[in-house]
């Protein structure tokens, strides 16, 4: 297979565009695709401060790399989720990436801030781990962006992610989620950051190819909680279609954005947001879901400490009372 641009040996085939590229021309094409998405959707400009959510996986580190190369002011934000060795390695990959490029990286350590990691937050509040994790990510990305005056939060959702979420939302008939599914989510509250997805035109296989060709060192292991995740099943189904009908994922998502979503917007009532009485973040309730979760966890952790202190007291009393063994 030959590169469409230079006729050299191709390294990456982009079947949905009936094209293939050598390494250098693939990198050039990829960066142009991202820049086109940013400009076309008016996501941000070189004057804006962009907070990039980075997990240490391929997509987020590729996004950060491309934005820095394109000259955007991109600061990374990593959340340490407290999932054992997986979280430790993820943070190390982000730190190494930032160090190599002289880029700014912010880190929020969830176990240090809230007493337990996302699995503990889930366990202590009767949620599944991915639910507590998703809630924590949405809350903390927004909070850090607003508190530190960033203009926009960029996440690395790619075409495959968006197509799989879309398929899931269509199956569930989740109209509110469909209305919110867009590459640019405008702020509707002073405490709500704009959110953008600059990789929405890029397939997951292409972000992986970019990472390999640029030598980006990312976490290859999957989150241990993602095994059997529904999103993986939806992606598998879409990739079966894509294998025999290249362009299926792109057609599904782009046709939705251009033809279907505009019709849904008129059918959806805007959600009234107010400020959480505890943290000030936007919410539909008096106290936001994140505060409710972390406050419940704090109470349970305190009662555990109290119970364990009560259990220790007799021992302390006996040794402190002079009645210990001689």
């Amino acid at each position, binding site marked *: 297979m030959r590169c469409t641009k230079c006729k050299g040996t*191709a390294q990456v085939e982009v079947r949905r565009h009936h094209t293939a590229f050598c390494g250098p021309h693939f990198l050039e094409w990829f960066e142009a695709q991202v820049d086109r998405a940013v400009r076309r959707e008016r996501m941000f400009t070189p004057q804006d401060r962009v907070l990039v959510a980075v997990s240490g996986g391929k997509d987020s580190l590729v996004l950060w790399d491309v934005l820095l190369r394109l000259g955007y002011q991109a600061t990374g934000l990593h959340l340490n989720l407290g999932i054992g060795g997986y979280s430790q390695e993820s943070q190390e990959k982000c730190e190494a990436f930032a160090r190599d490029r002289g880029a700014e990286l912010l880190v929020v350590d969830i176990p240090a801030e809230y007493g337990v990691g996302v699995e503990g937050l889930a366990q202590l509040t009767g949620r599944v781990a*991915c639910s507590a994790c998703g809630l924590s990510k949405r809350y903390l990305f927004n909070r850090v962006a607003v508190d530190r005056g960033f203009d926009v939060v960029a996440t690395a959702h790619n075409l495959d992610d968006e197509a799989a979420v879309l398929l899931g939302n269509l199956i569930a008939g989740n109209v509110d989620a469909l209305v919110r599914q867009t590459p640019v989510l405008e702020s509707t509250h002073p405490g709500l950051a704009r959110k953008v997805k600059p990789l929405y035109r890029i397939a997951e296989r292409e972000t992986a190819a970019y990472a*390999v060709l640029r*030598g980006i060192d990312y976490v290859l292991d999957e989150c241990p909680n993602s095994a059997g995740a529904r999103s993986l099943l939806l*992606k598998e189904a879409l990739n079966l279609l894509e294998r025999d009908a290249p362009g299926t994922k792109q057609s599904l998502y782009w046709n939705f954005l251009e033809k279907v979503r505009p019709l849904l917007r008129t059918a959806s009532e805007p959600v009234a947001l107010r400020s959480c009485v505890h943290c000030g973040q936007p919410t539909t309730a008096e106290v936001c879901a994140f505060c409710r979760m972390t406050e419940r966890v704090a109470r349970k952790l305190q009662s555990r400490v109290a119970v364990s202190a009560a259990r220790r007291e007799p021992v302390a009393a006996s040794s402190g009372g002079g009645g210990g063994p001689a």
Partner: protein
Amino acid sequence: MEGVRTVGELLDRLQLNPETVLVVRGTELLTRDARVADEDEIEIRPVVSGG
């Protein structure tokens, strides 16, 4: 692998969907028609992530 001459044949033999993997030889990515030899060291890298 006996009888395998290209990346496409290799993925067929392993029953892998080409949309879900990259095939890497050293620092080079291989397209479906790229020829592979018995002595080649090939990495098949999954690209699908999610949770």
